[in-house]
């Protein structure tokens, strides 16, 4: 698979935007501008962007609690996204959802979820609907390694195979579910193997820090799904650099381990690839990085200048008319 220059630039930009978004999110939180909690995907950018790069604009994704990267990869408006993160009225969800619940339905992002495994059963139903609509669309359904231990996962895999839905299930295995190590759960290495037994052709694991490898694996599964070949399960092995959420004290892992993984930074890896393949010069890459960070700075300004929701509107929008 050879990337076009245009695509290389696009993915590189998205990677920097994601990194910058989350660094900014952290800063805003530390500065007391944001309440609640957040789940950062720093270190996992290749999984989101590599996977979603295989989709057409009319395709769909459904995400999980660690979803900023997924949103940006699916083409979210950074201003609306940051405004949502700030809980503002003009955010994607009118400030009702926040970090853990960003959705961009018009853009094909059917939303993040606060319940681990919460999106997986819905993914099956979206697949059923897409099949009925017969418009050749595909869904990518993201979840973490922790979600693979839920009953929701098991039931959904069975239904997905039974109804042969056009869905690629993507397990972003960042090695931990909070403090629970994927190595403790004795089947962690075997999630893809379960996929095979459920009857999902081509289930596999990837080096989830390698955008090119992720794109190839997911691309093949998307193609199969689009051609009526049914669902697949792909496990992207990666790592989260930050704590699980703001409550994390990192007691369950060592600094060495974290440092080891930082050396495998997916952004640097992709950048090196682009330079080596002569898709980007170092200078171009620097310019892209700069653009990524300044896009996010603009989004921050936008968000901070945005209006809060009016308390009188609280009860709006619970029911559809």
């Amino acid at each position, binding site marked *: 698979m050879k990337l076009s220059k245009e695509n290389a630039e696009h993915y590189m930009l998205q990677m920097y935007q994601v990194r910058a978004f989350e660094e900014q999110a952290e800063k805003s939180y530390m500065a007391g501008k944001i309440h609640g909690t957040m789940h950062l995907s720093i270190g996992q950018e290749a999984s989101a962007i590599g996977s979603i790069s295989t989709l057409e604009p009319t395709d769909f994704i459904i995400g999980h609690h660690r979803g900023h990267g997924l949103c940006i990869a699916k083409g979210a408006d950074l201003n609306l996204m940051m405004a949502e993160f700030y809980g503002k009225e003009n955010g994607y969800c009118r400030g009702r959802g926040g970090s853990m619940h960003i959705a961009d339905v018009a853009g094909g992002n059917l*939303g993040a979820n*606060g319940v681990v495994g919460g999106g997986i059963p819905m993914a099956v*139903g979206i697949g059923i*609907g897409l099949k009925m609509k017969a418009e050749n669309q595909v869904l990518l359904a993201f979840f973490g390694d922790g979600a693979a231990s839920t009953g929701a996962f098991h039931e959904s895999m069975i239904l997905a195979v039974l109804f042969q839905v056009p869905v690629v299930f993507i397990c972003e295995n960042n090695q931990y579910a909070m403090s629970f190590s994927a190595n403790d759960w004795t089947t962690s290495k075997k999630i893809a193997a379960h996929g095979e037994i459920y009857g999902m052709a081509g289930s596999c694991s990837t080096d989830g820090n390698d955008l090119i490898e992720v794109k190839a694996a997911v691309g093949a599964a998307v193609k199969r799904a689009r051609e009526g070949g049914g669902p697949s399960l792909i496990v992207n092995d990666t790592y989260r650099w930050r704590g699980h959420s703001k409550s994390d004290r990192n007691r369950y892992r060592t600094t060495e381990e974290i440092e080891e993984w930082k050396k495998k930074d997916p952004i640097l890896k992709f950048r090196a690839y682009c330079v080596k393949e002569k898709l980007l010069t170092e200078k171009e890459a620097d310019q892209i990085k700069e653009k990524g960070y300044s896009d996010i700075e603009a989004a921050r300004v936008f968000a901070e200048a945005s209006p809060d929701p009016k308390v009188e509107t609280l009860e709006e929008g619970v029911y559809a008319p």
Partner: protein
Amino acid sequence: MREITFLEAIREAMTQEMERDSRVFLIGEDIGEYGGAFQVSYGMLEKFGHERILDTPITELGLTGAAVGAALIGMRPIAEIMFMDFTTLASEQLVNQAAKLRFMFGGQSSVPMVLRTPAGSGTGAAEHHSQSFENWFVHVPGLKVVMPTTPYDVKGLLISSIRDNNPVVFIEHKLLYKTKGEVPEEMYEIPLGKADIKREGKDLTIIATGIMVQKSLAAAEELIKEGIDIEVLDPRTLRPLDTESIVKSVKKTGKVLIVHEAVKTGGFGGELAGVIAESEAFGYLEAPIIRLAGREVPIPYNRDLEKAAVPQIEDIVEKARELATLKV
């Protein structure tokens, strides 16, 4: 007019809606060849094929979530949970997802689905196949909760529920399935959120839900012989509740007896009592608000115990008489 059973009315509503709207489909366990545990969907597989009658393995959470997901992209699924007891397995998707997605996403989406489920005791199926959890779902903003009580109502309410753009929990008491009544062949809607006075009266209002509407009507027939004239109000939709009709009836009669099958403590009767006690009807009350409801036990197997665990006609007669003749 033609008479059909409650069960046939449900099947007819689903069939007609599926013919009218290609987005409507069924999903559930054993709803195909088997026809559903209560034969509600019998024959529908032949008519609509496996594309629209989705028979699943035992996956309450999965199949409910599948309905939520399909609804999210504009389909109109009708999911069946074989017994209401098993909604305990499905409630994550119903409560956290279906009910909240619209609000949580700031209005970007809606979840037009129906979750049908048979509830209640009386079939000897014991603790795990006899429960009534309607008040759980009443407690969840974003859901609508419907409890039909006659063949006529069930058809119109189900059609409205399918056409509604929100998730609707549609609760069918098993002992109603074989009851008969007049039902028009054409399609019609009964608006959600409108109570129905099933019998007018002046001495006492009975607010009853589900099968207790029928039992209360029977009790009223007994009591009229003694000159006690009972009004029976059937909310039909529990969420949103037709508070206005309730307040009006209680203001008229001055006395109210609430009857439901679900366990009394924590049940919907409390909500009704709360609504009345905080309304302008309070000032019109001539007696305490009395709740007659399921006893504080799981539903037992033995036939006599099972009967004793939920209100029967005699119990309603007795309580209603006591209340109607009470001087305060």
